[in-house]
């Protein structure tokens, strides 16, 4: 078989058993890999009504046919489950070395079922799949966990330095163990499958970590064609100024861009501009300040991720990954924190504790506003918490360990803000914090966030930098198309830092054809995204999540450029464009067109 391995590894944690299943052909042909495959399995195997933190939920790690082949940036793996934060289907994506190693071990998908009676970690070395006790790892922070597992695997499998180094580890920090509803799954020292709280799902199953090292191979159908195509892509990447910027700055070019276009989420979305970030408008300044080196995911020619030096403080290590722009915006500008060293520390803390920096930032900025407005008394927290106060570092630890007020905050933004009488001050969508860009700054952005199936996610649609265009029809169409495009890309699975633009569909078809030897085209790939989007919508409806809304601050208070997001006008147009009813229910006709009639039973 080319590209795919055609195998699913299932691990039943309740019984402590594992087995391998053949991958159904339709999954490969119709859903390709990644988000498509795992969403399909979520839909087929998880009851939408269950509690996301119960043993009935499943945790699915998926790769794609391109993973580990050397197609630029095809390193990624996707994790899917029912989210404990939004109650929706969720599928965050992560780079690093884990995805490729799972593939080299001989599997396309890894599915965890049930719940282990006590903490465990799982090691996968090809067909040698083992479940080990992890009591000694419980409570450890992310990096320490990885280090201890590497040492253990070195002894257990007699691995040399290079092999240990090549290994991929997905793990949770204390936040995941303590079922913080926005805990993430960390990987390879600072990468994260971040949004929607799947770290808590992993914690609820008592899995501390999964380590994989594969010695197998991935076969490519047209080796010569593939080599030439990759070389051609490299040439293009080397010559292109746009690619140069993405490689050189990663996401560090964005704080300046956000500030300049007044779209920087700041002070719990009360503003679209953060004065303290002016000094970082030239990304070279950030490089000069903190960068140690560029760091790439497996098989990525860019290396957009950066390793940074943290201020000279004994509490922190010498260097750490990030911070990426979303972290700078949500933990930084949105909490009034403007010093790059502080930002590195906040980012490092979240990574070690295993928490999504975006929702965490939204939680803390909400607490800050509640505090400043006098709704949250100081005696409840134990210290003052105005915007910009570095006491928030204490709060981060409290949330992850569920101490003091952190216990309430770990339940998510709506529960926390409601307790203090102001649920509208949590800037979230379906329970997930709104990402970095202020929705009022760009016409389609509010619509994209509101309609996103997984809550306010920044990777399920791109940022529409179309200032000045006033035609709502354009934005509605753009939103639909973009959501579908990215659902297909997530099935590839390709990183959209690279494949960011209208031409990516052709590119993905090209890679897929060289690798798998099949006849994909952009035209055959396009409907896939729409099918995935509708399937996710049906799951959410069955789970009881129907509304596509934005916080009232975004739709009613003109904070940026004196405008609000006219969601009530845009939504009907969007639903119509999708072929859905006025209330956002997919129509029978649409589902027939997408061959999802059976899936729609009981909902429409």
């Amino acid at each position: 078989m080319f590209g795919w391995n055609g195998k699913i590894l299932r691990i039943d944690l309740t019984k402590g058993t594992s087995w391998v299943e053949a991958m159904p052909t339709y999954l490969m042909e119709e859903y390709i890999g990644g988000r498509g495959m795992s969403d399909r399995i979520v839909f087929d195997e998880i009851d939408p009504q269950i509690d996301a933190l119960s043993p009935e939920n499943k945790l699915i790690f998926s790769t794609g046919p391109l993973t580990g082949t050397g197609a630029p940036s095809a390193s990624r793996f996707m994790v899917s489950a029912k989210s404990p934060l939004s109650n929706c289907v969720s599928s965050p994506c992560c780079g690093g070395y884990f995805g490729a190693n799972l593939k080299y071990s001989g599997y396309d998908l890894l599915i965890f079922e049930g719940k282990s009676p006590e903490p465990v970690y799982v090691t996968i070395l090809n067909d040698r799949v083992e479940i080990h006790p992890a009591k000694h790892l419980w409570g450890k922070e992310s990096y320490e966990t990885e280090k201890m597992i590497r040492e253990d695997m070195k002894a257990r499998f007699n691995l040399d330095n290079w092999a240990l180094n090549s290994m991929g580890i997905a793990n949770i920090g204390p936040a995941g163990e303590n079922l913080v509803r926005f805990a993430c799954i960390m990987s390879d020292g600072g990468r994260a499958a971040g949004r929607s709280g799947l770290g808590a799902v992993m914690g609820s199953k008592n899995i501390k970590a999964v380590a994989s090292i594969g010695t197998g191979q991935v076969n490519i159908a047209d080796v010569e064609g593939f080599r030439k195509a990759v070389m051609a892509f490299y040439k293009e990447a080397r010559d292109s100024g746009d690619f140069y910027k993405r490689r050189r700055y990663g996401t560090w070019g964005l704080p300046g861009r956000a500030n300049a276009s007044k779209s920087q989420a700041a002070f719990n979305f009360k503003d679209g501009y953060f004065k303290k970030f002016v000094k970082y408008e030239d990304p070279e300044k950030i490089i000069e300040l903190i960068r140690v080196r560029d760091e790439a995911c497996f098989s990525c020619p860019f290396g957009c991720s950066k390793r940074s030096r943290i201020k000279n403080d004994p509490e922190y290590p010498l260097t750490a990954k990030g911070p990426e722009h979303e972290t700078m915006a949500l933990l930084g500008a949105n909490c009034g924190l403007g010093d790059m060293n502080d930002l590195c520390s906040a980012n490092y803390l979240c990574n070690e504790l295993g928490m999504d920096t975006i929702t965490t930032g939204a939680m803390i900025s909400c607490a800050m506003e509640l505090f400043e407005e006098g709704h949250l008394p100081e005696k409840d927290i134990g210290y003052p918490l105005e915007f910009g106060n570095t006491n928030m570092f204490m709060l981060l630890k409290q949330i992850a360990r569920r101490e003091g007020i952190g216990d309430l905050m770990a339940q998510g933004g709506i529960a926390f803000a409601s307790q203090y009488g102001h649920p509208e001050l949590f800037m979230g969508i379906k329970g997930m914090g709104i990402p970095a860009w202020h929705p009022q700054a760009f016409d389609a952005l509010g619509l994209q966030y509101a309609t996103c199936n997984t809550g306010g996610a920044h990777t399920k649609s791109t940022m529409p930098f179309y200032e000045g265009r006033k035609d709502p029809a354009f934005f509605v169409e753009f939103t639909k198309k973009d959501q579908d495009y990215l659902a297909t890309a997530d099935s590839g699975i390709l990183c959209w830092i690279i494949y960011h633009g209208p031409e990516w569909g052709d590119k993905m078809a090209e890679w897929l054809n060289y690798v798998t030897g099949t006849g994909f085209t952009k035209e055959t790939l396009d409907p896939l995204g729409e099918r995935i989007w509708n399937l996710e919508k049906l799951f959410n409806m069955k789970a009881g999540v129907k509304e596509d809304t934005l916080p009232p601050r975004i739709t009613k208070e003109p904070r940026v450029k004196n405008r609000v997001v006219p969601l009530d006008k845009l939504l009907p147009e969007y639903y119509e464009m999708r072929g859905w009813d006025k209330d956002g229910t997919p129509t029978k006709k649409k589902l027939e067109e997408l061959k999802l009639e059976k899936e729609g039973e009981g909902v429409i």
Partner: protein
Amino acid sequence: MKIKIDHKTCTGCKQCEIICSLAHTGSVNPWRSRIRVYVGEEFCYPVIAGPYTEAACNSKGTRMVEGLEIDECVTCRASCPSKSVYKEPDTGIPLKCDFCGDPPNPQCVQWCAPNCLTLVEE
């Protein structure tokens, strides 16, 4: 000719491992590659497979690179009886860089996007 390595610019993407195995075996498997990248915190360290030695060395220790201590085995180019790196995983046959033919056209150099590897005259 030799392949010059500038470890300061290496990003740890391991495309060199991938193309080496692809060019030599027709499939992707970094374990069958003749170049292997050690990914460190401060920098990465690609090492190209040198000749096989019958005996394991007795002086195994650590080496300082950029002020950091690393295991000497990581930087050693040889494969030996006690070091599994640079051997075919199934057969144990030692691997050695062949500069991808004559005249030399190393694929790892071609695929190295950060230009950490370059082919130079000796």
